């Protein structure tokens, strides 16, 4: 029975156990244990949830906290210490001169217009406009709204006015934003800076060649040009143009050691603020783009080639110089009556054509050609502006050698001419003219193509062209500036023949010649004789009624006046020079 009971009990237990296991399959532990564990897991479960939420809160708090710390630690730029105003919002960067004077800047201009068709509440709009523009004539606006055509409320809005209008959120108000390029110096740098189109993309000058830099860089473009010097030189050129009734003129001022251009002017010029389509060739950049036969300025190269090659010396005498030579059917003669015997130095000082031919003949075609090629006079110059001319090709021969010796039959640009003179003047070091400011340019890393001795000899000869009474450029002998240089008068080629009246008169000068620092090149395009002009000699003698039309009688006058005016500025700006005093 007991067993039965026991069995039954066992069975019963088994059934019970089975039933239990059916419901609580996973909880096989005794009842008291189960109770404890369930309590513990509930607490644990709730704790996990709390800590998870707390963790999220902590993360959020950390994010906000770190943002506050970040905002507090930001160092805002000081807008007032920088000369150049941050113009991140502008499409193009500023262009500055070497003294940080502004040459070009983009300006944001806002304008507001009304589209009457989209006005929903006319009264509300007028009240808002009255609040924003208290001085505005509302009757005019009412009338225009009545007409129903698109019209401008104001064309030059300031930032706050624009913002207030924008905050109105009115569909009928059309807010326009446009950028304009402003050139404070108007026409002063027209040939250098160039123009931009309606999309703010450069189409000529530096605006084109530095388009990427101006649009992508965060820094302004700093040029080697000097606005004050540029203005003075331009004024003097204009005066010269009026006196000698020229078609145009050009001037270039360059540091001969660095090749940095301080001034580049070509007249006539144009106002950059008034966008215009310039197709007339008179407006081409005469310094970089114009390709000319430049005449006697080439005699300096002939003399340099002769001395450098050892063919001649400064005192080598050339006897029995003829009055004229016939070459290729063309007669070559002297510009004036000259002695039959001349030294090499006198040939340069008195600008003898026949003498230059004799020197070139002595040097030979090969040597002379190689020398001129070393000065890179006949290949396209590598320059920052895109408006660069390519010298016309020619074949070397006996006749070409003769005409080239005094600068005829061969062409080059004024920039290349200036470069070649700078190389001769600076001790023979090869330089590259640049329009960008670079304070680290020194002669030490430059290639020397002419010896220092030859350079010194030629410099002293160039000085005599001006200081000698028989020299062709005595009007440029300005006291204190030790000017040296060479004149060049070349006839223009019109329809394949040399014109007798139309000339290109050039004067290249270096100063102070004892240690040349600057090069000034002046060119007058088709000048005319000025019989009414009073020529004043250094001795005090005055001359009027002069009808000669050579560089010595017009270009040199202009160059002399320029040197007299820019000389003090260059001297004060030049630390090396001012330290001597």
């Amino acid at each position, binding site marked *: 029975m007991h067993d039965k009971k026991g069995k039954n009990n066992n069975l019963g237990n088994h059934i019970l156990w089975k039933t239990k296991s059916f419901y609580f399959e996973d909880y096989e532990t005794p009842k008291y244990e189960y109770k404890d564990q369930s309590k513990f897991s509930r607490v644990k479960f709730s704790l996990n949830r709390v800590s998870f939420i*707390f963790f999220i*809160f902590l993360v959020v708090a950390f994010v906000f906290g770190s943002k*506050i710390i970040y*905002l507090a630690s930001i160092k805002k730029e000081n807008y*007032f210490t920088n000369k150049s105003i941050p113009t991140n919002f502008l499409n193009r960067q500023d262009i500055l001169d070497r003294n940080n004077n*502004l040459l070009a800047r983009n300006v944001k201009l806002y304008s507001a217009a009304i589209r009457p068709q989209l006005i929903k509440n006319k009264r509300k709009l007028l009240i808002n406009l009255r609040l924003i523009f208290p001085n505005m004539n509302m009757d005019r606006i009412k009338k225009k709204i009545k007409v129903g055509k698109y019209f401008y409320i104001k064309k030059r809005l*300031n*930032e706050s006015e624009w913002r207030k209008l924008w905050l109105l959120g009115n569909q009928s108000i059309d807010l326009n934003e446009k950028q304009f390029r402003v050139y404070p110096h108007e026409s002063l740098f027209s040939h250098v800076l160039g123009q931009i189109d309606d999309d703010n993309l450069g189409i000529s000058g530096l605006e084109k060649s530095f388009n990427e830099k101006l649009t992508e860089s965060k820094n302004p473009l700093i040029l080697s040009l000097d606005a*004050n010097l540029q203005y003075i030189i331009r004024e003097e050129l204009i005066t010269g143009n009026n006196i000698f009734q020229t078609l145009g003129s050009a001037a270039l001022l360059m540091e001969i050691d660095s090749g940095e251009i301080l001034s580049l002017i070509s007249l006539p010029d144009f106002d950059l603020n008034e966008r215009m389509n310039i197709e007339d060739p008179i407006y081409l950049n005469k310094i970089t783009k114009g390709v000319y036969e430049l005449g006697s300025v080439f005699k300096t190269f002939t003399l340099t080639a002769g001395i450098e090659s050892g063919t001649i010396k400064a005192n080598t005498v050339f006897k029995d110089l003829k009055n004229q030579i016939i070459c290729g059917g063309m007669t070559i003669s002297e510009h004036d009556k000259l002695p039959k015997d001349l030294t090499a130095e006198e040939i340069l000082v008195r600008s003898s054509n026949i003498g230059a031919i004799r020197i070139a003949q002595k040097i030979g075609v090969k040597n002379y050609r190689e020398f001129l090629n070393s000065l890179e006079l006949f290949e396209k110059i590598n320059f920052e502006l895109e408006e660069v001319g390519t010298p016309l090709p020619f074949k070397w021969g006996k006749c070409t050698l003769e005409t080239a010796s005094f600068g005829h039959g061969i062409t080059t640009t004024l920039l290349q001419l200036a470069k070649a003179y700078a190389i001769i003047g600076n001790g023979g070091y090869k330089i590259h003219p640049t329009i960008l400011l670079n304070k680290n340019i020194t002669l030490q890393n430059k290639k020397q193509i002419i010896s220092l001795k030859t350079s010194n000899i030629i410099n002293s000869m160039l000085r005599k062209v001006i200081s000698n009474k028989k020299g062709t450029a005595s009007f440029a002998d300005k006291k204190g500036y030790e000017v040296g240089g060479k004149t060049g008068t070349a006839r223009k080629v019109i329809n394949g023949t040399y014109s007798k009246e139309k000339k290109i008169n050039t004067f290249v000068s270096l100063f102070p010649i004892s240690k040349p620092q600057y090069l000034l090149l002046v060119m007058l395009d088709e000048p005319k004789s000025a019989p009414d002009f009073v020529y004043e000699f250094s001795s005090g003698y005055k001359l009027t009624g002069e009808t000669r039309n050579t560089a010595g009688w017009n270009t040199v006058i202009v160059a002399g006046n320029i040197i*007299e005016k820019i000389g003090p500025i260059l001297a004060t700006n030049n630390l090396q020079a001012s330290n001597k005093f």
Partner: protein
Amino acid sequence: MRNILILITLISGLIFTSLIKNKTRLLEKKLLYLDNEINSLNFNLNEASLDFEYLTTPKHISLLVKNFLDENFSYYKESQIKKSIKPEKDLTILKKLKNYNTFTQLSKKESVNKKSNVTKKIDNIPLLITKRIDDRQPQRSKKIVISKKVKKWAGIQVIKALLGIPPISIR
């Protein structure tokens, strides 16, 4: 107790987060406002600097000079500067310069002597001053004596007047 703790942490977390969020929102508003203000100022500064650059171009300055200034800003030629200084003046200037140079290039002994002379002179200055003061002293005492006499005389005259004695005329 635990539930209360959890509740407190939850509520405090909520409050803390909302506070931070509010503060950040305010800060952001302020920053936006300041940014706008900076933009506006920047715009004005940009325009002002452009105006300045335009008005200070050499062309405009020379125009202003022509129109508003009576001064003649003509440049001087080197030859003109030379003429303006007379040769005699030149010589004196040169002499002065020479003396100055020689003074600076004096030998050590000479310079020491010069220095001692200068220090002697400086030492003598207080003596001279005291001497001058001494010289002035008697004059001062005389003045004091005079003023005392006057006072005494005036006093006597007042007493005399009070007593009915006729005053003596001033000599």
